[in-house]
């Protein structure tokens, strides 16, 4: 079991610093239409964007589409990018919007999928010792995260996984810091309660 090895794990390291990883020269080249510069930007941010999209959306195919859409929109909007904004904040604002809109557009065609999801969850439930497959800690975390309301999940991911400060998230989302902290707390409370039964720390 993956979680049994957590006994020997060191404490969680400090959050990854959300430092800008592109310089203004690269962005300026991309603004002028330099496709090679844009490709370099995509290479540097793709994995982080995909990680965030996988947390916000239902599956890999959907995340693929949304991440592609995000970078296409970023490229189109680059001429309007102002350097006083942090580049990764701007990117994650577009990505967050794309994720939210994808979820809205999907809500109407969800009835069948929801049934499938329920079936999947019942199969994977830790309450069912007869489940025929061995679930992984990471799978449990993703299931628990998927149950967190979208507006709390987004802030939780931005803060704890992507490493943005509350101040920066306020700039990204326009939501006040006190509300952001409450959303992160609610997401954390849900994860803690949901994972307590399978955590072997």
């Amino acid at each position, binding site marked *: 079991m993956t979680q049994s090895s957590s006994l020997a794990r060191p404490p969680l390291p400090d959050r990854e610093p959300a430092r800008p990883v592109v310089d203004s020269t690269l962005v300026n080249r991309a603004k002028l239409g330099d496709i090679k510069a844009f490709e370099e930007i995509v290479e540097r941010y793709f994995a982080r964007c995909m990680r965030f999209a996988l947390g916000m959306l239902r599956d890999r195919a959907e995340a693929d589409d949304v991440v592609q859409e995000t970078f*296409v929109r970023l490229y189109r909007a680059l001429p309007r990018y102002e350097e006083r904004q942090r580049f990764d904040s701007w990117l994650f604002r577009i990505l967050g919007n794309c994720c939210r809109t994808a979820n*809205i557009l999907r809500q109407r065609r969800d009835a069948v999928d929801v049934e499938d999801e329920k079936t999947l969850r019942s199969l994977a439930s830790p309450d069912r010792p007869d489940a025929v497959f061995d679930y992984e800690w990471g799978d449990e975390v993703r299931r628990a995260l998927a149950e967190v309301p979208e507006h709390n999940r987004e802030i939780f991911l931005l803060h704890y996984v992507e490493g943005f400060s509350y101040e920066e998230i306020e700039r990204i989302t326009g939501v006040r810091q006190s509300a952001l902290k409450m959303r992160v707390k609610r997401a954390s409370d849900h994860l803690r309660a949901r994972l307590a039964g399978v955590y072997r720390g």
Partner: protein
Amino acid sequence: MAERRNEPGPIVERAIESLRELPPIEGDMVSRIVAAAARSRAQDAAPDADDLLPALAAPNSRYALRVSVIAAAAIVLVAGTIELWRVTHASTETTRVAAVPQAVAVPASRDVNGDLTPIPTQFVFDGRARAVTLVGDFNNWDARATPLEREPGSTLWSVTVPIQRGRHVYAYLVDSVWTIDKRAPVARDPDFGVTGSVILVGRP
């Protein structure tokens, strides 16, 4: 102490650690994205069938200014006509009006001094709904950023937002359902992966 209370604790820390693992990058994903972006910008550069007022694209042209003023006046006239029709028919044909959602985007004013000054632009939607929000390239398609407010006792929803001059694509989310503006041109190159409506604001 307050900070300690906000600490996630060991279970959530382990969950965060797991969530921080970066997913693998599939071989051609980056090149596919770059190709899609290049195609997209090439479309932007091509002449656009739904740019119905090509003269607006000529900055500092007196003719362009004249046409834009006429166009703005025409849009206001259409909006006024709809409103007048709605008011005069409200008592007898409310259901019929409400059954056909109508939306009109009206540039509310112009700033002739600074080209970069956003222009307050009013968006009006007519129809029964619990909630209507405006999404567009000017608000990063944020479904929460620009809610419309309903005029008490009517089915008219409106919001005024400052928008940079130029061509913009937008849509309404009516009770979370993507709804294009039937009275506006349809965007040929949907900015958000689905069809939207087009508004020309001031002089591009």
